[in-house]
């Protein structure tokens, strides 16, 4: 049939060609010439008539090439991050074919696993109970922590393909991948014990890589029992579910003097000439600012003002600062900006404007006022200081392996941003070293390691007896191995954040 059709076509073609040849033969040379020219002219006319059509055709085809290019880019580059979004409920359908994988600490200790009981009933078990409650999170009643951000990985199986194939045929579930975290069980325990029953948070990082080694928030909860306690804690005023380390918002207190000092150094290259005589109080209008504990520090330079955490001296600095440039520095230190890392956080606020009064400037410079910050953010600033000005992107997932331990991918430490020059970082580190050597954090003096840091006390209510106690610090100042940020809420003065840091530093 086809053969016949083809022959038919060929015959027709051949006949037509023959006709044309005969025609040409019959035509005189002249005729041929005019005919050829006519055809050429016609083609030319058509082309010029169609120029605009062609332009439009190319324009739209170009538009589609751009669109398809974008789709390929989206899939190849952007989709990985989007798919992992906690909003993506599609991930949960993977659970039909995959047993949720384990979350383990850097030393291999299991932080979360799925136990499969009789008849295939699965339950999520957290061997350390409440110790990793906030950072590891929970996977039922909604999701939080790593259980939420790593949901996609935990429900993806990279088991050996033959095994997967076998399971498929036998209609059995595959094992999900294992998330190996950067968390250090020992440091987490020490930090949690040191914080005791106080409300507050501790976060510990390795500044040279951005690894988060410990993250504690109190009060906490036991994720093993999340379903049964859910109703009682979900709207609880205590905020058990809140990860204070990243989502807590506090006045920074004197820890903010780090930012003020940096701004002062930027505006005054000869900052080592700064002199101030502290009389214990400074007043502007009807606002009077006292030094903590009503101390009188006498004559000070910048280093001793910082080491003594002298409020009056920093208020004095505050009124001299250029607000615009101060705003710029705060922005560079990520106030009001996005923070790096996969953890959910609250953006910090720095609210000084050019119309702010002198009193507000003074309050802001010494860390009161309207500034709000999380322990996570202060830890990141301290990391940058410890790391020569460069902030490494903080991360919690060191690598992902399949359930037998074969590596699927590993996180490489990545530079996030340069928050300040290395010179500035060095100068700030020296100021912070002074705080330990001859200032408010002398508890950390004379240990087997060197330390630097800044203490802080933040008033938060009308109750003058209780303050938030802050500490940010660096262990091994010349070759920093740890950075810590600690907050203790509502301390009556006996519980000090610097003591928590000491416990952690001692036990590393």
């Amino acid at each position: 049939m086809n053969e016949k059709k083809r022959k038919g076509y060929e015959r027709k073609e051949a006949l037509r060609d023959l006709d044309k040849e005969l025609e040409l033969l019959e035509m005189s040379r002249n005729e041929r010439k005019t005919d050829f020219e006519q055809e050429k002219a016609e083609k030319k006319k058509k082309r010029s008539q169609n120029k605009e059509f062609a332009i439009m055709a190319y324009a739209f085809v170009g538009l589609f090439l751009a669109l398809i290019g974008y789709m390929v880019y989206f899939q190849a580059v952007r989709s990985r991050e989007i798919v992992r979004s906690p909003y993506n409920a599609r991930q949960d359908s993977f659970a039909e074919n995959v047993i949720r994988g384990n979350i383990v600490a850097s030393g291999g200790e299991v932080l979360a696993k799925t136990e499969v009981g009789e008849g295939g009933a699965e339950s999520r078990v957290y061997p350390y109970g409440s110790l990793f409650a906030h950072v590891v999170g929970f996977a039922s009643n909604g999701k939080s922590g790593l259980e939420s951000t790593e949901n996609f990985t935990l429900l993806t199986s990279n088991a050996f393909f033959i095994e997967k194939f076998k399971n498929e045929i036998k209609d059995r579930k595959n094992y999900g991948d294992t998330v190996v975290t950067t968390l250090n069980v020992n440091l987490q325990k020490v930090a949690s014990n040191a914080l005791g029953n106080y409300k507050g948070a501790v976060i510990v990082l390795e500044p040279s890589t951005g690894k988060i080694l410990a993250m504690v928030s109190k009060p906490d909860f036991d994720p093993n029992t999340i379903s049964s306690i859910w109703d009682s804690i979900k709207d609880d005023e205590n905020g058990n579910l809140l990860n204070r380390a990243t989502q807590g918002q506090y006045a920074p207190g004197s820890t903010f003097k780090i930012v003020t000092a940096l701004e002062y150094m930027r505006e005054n290259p000869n900052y080592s000439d700064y002199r101030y005589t502290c009389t214990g109080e400074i007043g502007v209008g009807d606002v009077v600012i006292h030094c903590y504990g009503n101390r009188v520090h006498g004559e000070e330079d910048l280093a001793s003002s910082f080491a003594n955490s002298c409020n009056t001296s920093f208020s004095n600095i505050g009124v001299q600062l250029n607000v615009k440039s101060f705003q710029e520095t705060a922005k560079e230190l990520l106030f009001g900006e996005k923070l790096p890392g996969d953890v959910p956080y609250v953006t910090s606020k720095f609210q000084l404007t050019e119309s702010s009064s002198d009193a507000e400037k003074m309050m802001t410079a010494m860390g009161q006022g309207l500034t709000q910050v999380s322990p996570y953010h202060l830890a990141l600033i301290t990391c940058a200081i410890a790391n020569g000005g460069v902030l490494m992107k903080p991360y919690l997932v060191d690598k992902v392996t399949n359930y037998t331990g074969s590596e699927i991918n590993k996180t490489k430490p990545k530079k996030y941003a340069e928050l300040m020059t290395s010179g500035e970082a060095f100068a700030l580190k020296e100021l912070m070293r002074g705080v330990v050597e001859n200032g408010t954090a002398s508890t950390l003096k004379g240990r087997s390691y060197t330390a630097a840091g800044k203490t802080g006390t933040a008033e938060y209510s009308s109750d003058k007896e209780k303050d938030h106690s802050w500490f940010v610090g660096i262990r091994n100042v010349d070759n920093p191995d740890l950075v810590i940020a600690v907050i203790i809420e509502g301390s009556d003065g006996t519980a000090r954040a610097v003591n928590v840091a000491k416990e952690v530093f001692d036990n590393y």
Partner: protein
Amino acid sequence: MENIIVELSKYLLIILVAVYTYLCFGVFGIEDPYRKNSMLTQQSVVMFMIQIVAFGVMFLQTGEKKMLIFYGMQFALFLATIILYVNIYPKVSRLVVNNMCMLLCIGMIMLTRLNYSYAMKQFLISACAVAGSLVVPVIIRKMTTLAKLRWIYALIGLASLGAVFVAGRISYGAKLGFEIMGISIQPSELVKIVFVFFVAASFRISTSFKNVVLTSAIAAAHVLILVASTDLGSALIIVIVYIVMLYVATKQWVYLAAGIVGGAGASYVGYKLFSHVKTRVEVWRDPFALYETGGYQVAQSLFAIGTGSWFGMGLFKGAPQTIPVVEKDFIFSAISEEMGLIFAICTVLICVSCYVMILNIAMELRRRFYKYIALGLGTCYIFQVFLTVGGAVKFIPSTGVTLPFVSYGGSSILSTFIMFAIIQGLYIVREDEEEDIERKKEERLRAQRSIKRLG
């Protein structure tokens, strides 16, 4: 076991659609009519293979016999469409018929998976539309008065848009249409075609400045009514179609530039004036930040496309129902989620091949009226594809228009069928014209020769 079959079928479907798409563009360079014809036949065979694989997989997963029966019905419809078109109009463009069936086929597979009763409705509308559209090419070919009815086109367009504006119901913030016997009709879909006829008829008469102003004023009236009805997707399509036709007809860069600047200005005013335009732009910027307040739809679409990745989850293995109005504005995301982004990109390329074919026809035609119509309809079609696909992947803000032939919707299907039937009519006119030219040439030659002999 079932999962393995679904898994393998995914790759098979992708290979088949890739072959089909390759043939779509492959035929453009082929002169040899036998080879061309056999490639076009291969295309149809590939389409039927895609259909049988997809329905086989869906039957396997649901175990419902109605899948097989429905498959049989669709197979019959597509076969009949191809046979009828090719036999009634031997000069028809087979590529356009094939693409029409292919896009409809992809749409029917996805709709059957998403919502069986919608799919059944769509099937019935398509069957009627095929039958109805068969007469359109004759009308185009025979009715030479079509070029002279410009005021009638303007009147029909403005009157029906006005009627919808007054009597229309509210749906998703836009007064778009009314319902007849359970089938929702959106006149704006059909008005786009009438509008193209109006502009073509007007520019056929003259492209003098005076006439350009007059035509632009009437075009602006269309756009304003659509904007007032908050049907901004259609308004945008009309604007683009008009600018393109104006530029091509007048051959003046100035009009193109003025159109683009004016369009951009109007968009900015729209953005400032209408809160729901503003929302859509903000959602486009960051759908996740506005997840609770309007970003949900686009975010779900991105999850669908991202989770499906290159090869898709497999039919019935994804969760496309989580995207609001997935059957209409976001069917592209559903295709991408379950059949894979490669399959989805091939679908887009098939649409582009339709456009290239239409513009090809426009360039080959001689009479200006027909040329403009082909250009206008082609632009209307491809820009609508761009809006819906671009919106689904967040390349541009989502505008809420359908993917022609693929999305669910009575008037969308109907108007696209009419549009393509008109294109077919124009293609036949082109063949007629060519025959005419050949004949005239022959006559001239013969005359010359006989003069010589006599002399």
